[in-house]
């Protein structure tokens, strides 16, 4: 199917639709928003696949350059992959990248790729964080066995992409602690939930004042009790968990990361239940901080000014992984 829009634009458009539906006469239309959330999910899957594919490519390139050049030059070559304005979705058949709707449509190789790409991603981030803290770069761990990534378009690299994807804490209006009150229309129960953002998303730097143990809000209580340090490569033991989570910033110093990560993964994993968690659920979309996404202006000092929609999409992707136990306000 010929499509003039790329995954990112689709995500922005979808978010805009959901946002404007909140102010429509007659109340939120459950049916329409459910359908939009499907598009959002499909686009997100494609978008993430693209990102990981690009990441992998960069990683490969990095390695080759590393072998040829002294380490301290690495900084310049860490051009963070940026799909930025990626090629059109036509390059990626949704099925090819496992972007299909059904769990059955996902092929094991795609999952495996995402798994490995995620590991690479974690390595990448660790490196980035260490650069902030230590002038000397770290050596790369040996990359996992390469699986050929799906054909990816030529990226347009824009430096600072990752910084954009993980906005500084100051970007958030209320730091890590905004709450949303939602009302169940059936039972008339009012519930207050934490902001959909996990601490790890917004507390990318060590200077975040509110980032204690990194334990997020009450919604993640079941997993919060498990505190274990996260090391790259650990997932190899947990293959069947399909830890192909989303892009998430790793907290500095290896603070307990796994609980939140697991929760986020639950939202993302296609296998958790065939027709449940695959949908970036309406709750997280309607939940916290949503209106902030659409109106946010790009921070042009930090990166080349992206389109509003692009920045929205990145932030949306970061927050969509969040998990809230909100009761739907329909």
């Amino acid at each position, binding site marked *: *199917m*010929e*499509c*003039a*829009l790329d995954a990112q634009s*689709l995500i922005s*458009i979808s978010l805009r*639709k959901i946002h404007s539906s909140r102010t429509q*006469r*007659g*109340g939120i*239309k*459950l*049916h*329409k928003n*459910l*359908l939009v959330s*499907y*598009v959002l999910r*499909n*686009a997100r899957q*494609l978008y993430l696949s693209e990102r990981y594919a690009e990441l992998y490519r960069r990683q490969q390139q990095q390695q080759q350059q590393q072998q040829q050049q002294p380490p301290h030059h690495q900084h310049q070559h860490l051009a963070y992959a940026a799909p930025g304005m990626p090629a059109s*979705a036509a390059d990626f*058949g*949704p*099925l090819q990248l496992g972007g*299909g*709707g059904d769990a059955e*449509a996902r092929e094991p190789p795609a999952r495996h790729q995402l798994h490995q790409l995620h590991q690479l991603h974690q390595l990448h981030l660790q490196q980035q964080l260490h650069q902030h803290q230590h002038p000397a770069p770290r050596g790369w761990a040996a990359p996992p066995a390469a699986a050929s990534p799906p054909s990816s378009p030529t990226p347009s690299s824009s430096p600072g992409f990752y910084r954009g994807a993980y906005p500084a804490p100051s970007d958030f209006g209320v730091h890590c602690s905004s709450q949303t009150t939602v*009302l169940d*229309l*059936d039972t*008339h129960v009012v519930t207050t939930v934490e902001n959909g953002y996990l601490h790890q998303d917004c507390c990318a730097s060590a200077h975040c004042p509110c980032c204690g143990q990194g334990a997020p809000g009450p919604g993640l209580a079941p997993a919060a009790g498990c505190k274990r340090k996260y090391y790259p490569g650990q997932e190899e033991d947990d293959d069947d968990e399909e830890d192909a989570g989303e892009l998430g910033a790793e907290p500095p110093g290896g603070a307990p990361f796994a609980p939140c990560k697991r929760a986020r993964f639950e939202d993302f994993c296609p296998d958790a*239940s065939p*027709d*449940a*968690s695959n*949908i970036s*659920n*309406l*709750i997280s979309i309607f939940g916290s901080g949503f209106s902030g996404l659409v109106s946010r202006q790009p921070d042009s000092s930090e990166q080349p000014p992206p389109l509003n929609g692009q920045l929205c999409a990145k932030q949306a992707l970061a927050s969509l992984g969040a998990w809230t136990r909100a*009761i*739907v306000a*329909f």
Partner: protein
Amino acid sequence: MFLCVFFPGAGGGNDIQWCFSQVKGAVDDDVAEADIISTVEFNHSGELLATGDKGGRVVIFQQEQENKIQSHSRGEYNVYSTFQSHEPEFDYLKSLEIEEKINKIRWLPQKNAAQFLLSTNDKTIKLWKISERDKRPEGYNLKEEDGRYRDPTTVTTLRVPVFRPMDLMVEASPRRIFANAHTYHINSISINSDYETYLSADDLRINLWHLEITDRSFNIVDIKPANMEELTEVITAAEFHPNSCNTFVYSSSKGTIRLCDMRASALCDRHSKLFEEPEDPSNRSFFSEIISSISDVKFSHSGRYMMTRDYLSVKIWDLNMENRPVETYQVHEYLRSKLCSLYENDCIFDKFECCWNGSDSVVMTGSYNNFFRMFDRNTKRDITLEASRENNKPRTVLKPRKVCASGKRKKDEISVDSLDFNKKILHTAWHPKENIIAVATTNNLYIFQDKVN
């Protein structure tokens, strides 16, 4: 030796020639939002045609008695009654405005001189009685003719009041109001063949009502998940079987239809039959879920088949076969490559309806550019017609239209990119007995008839 006679423009054989008959509604292009037609329905005899609009009004047209002298056309439809069915409301608890738009109208079969119909908006269903008054009592002893009461002491003689003829007056009065039973938006109502009960369906639930009882309804289907985060599909339409009073179907946003038997259990969460066609993987796209959502489901008059409408096609299902439809008709396949733009401009969410003719041999549905399509199930021929005020004098035969998907556009064809997506025909209705159809454009109602020679 065969002698073949061809009728130009007739489409050959026994095909109907559709002629323009009437158009109702404002002429100007500036459409007032309240005038947007939201539902069209013939009554059981076909004599009455009801429309509902976004402003909450119901307009009923009545067919005039056939003029035996002028046998070239059947009676025209003229306004019979107009009334405000629903008003906008505000739910203060939930801070929600409730639209007055009429989502559906369903007629009850006529039992006496009065007519009854059910009309519904997003939350409330109302039973309306439409009755005629053509005489009025005169000669009261205690009342003047203008209604003022007389002083009893001035009455010197007594007389018996009598009925005198008056100009026909059609009154609509709400007889029952069925409220507060739906949390989500009502999308369907359907009257049972027992003529005593009816169902109403919203996104997640279906309720069963008795027409006489307004303070209670039975919930017969509930697909709301315990955790709303797990919501994957909603109910999009529901209908009772035309003959079996225990059977109904409901369609979902995932493209499935469930048939339920109320004898099986009080809560029909478990279907008796599940109608689903496996998706064609080669057609997979970002929008697969949207275009497979069913927007309308209608039983055939016989009750043997049902028809569903999704964004691009019409499917006919045999109730005895669950794994695939028996017939599939492409309404506007040329839109498949345009889904992105249609998503952007929201057209992909348009909910088209569909309908059967009286003999279940032809089905009809709407499209864009004020086109509507008919599919003859026997001859397998289809035709595209346009509802337009241009070149439409009474008894003008409609010219078949053709959309050119790609490549060289022939004369008289219209290219996909020239289609006006703001002109959509979502609601159509077919007279239960005759070849008379009512087609609603945005704010106009067109009536077409077949050519009577």
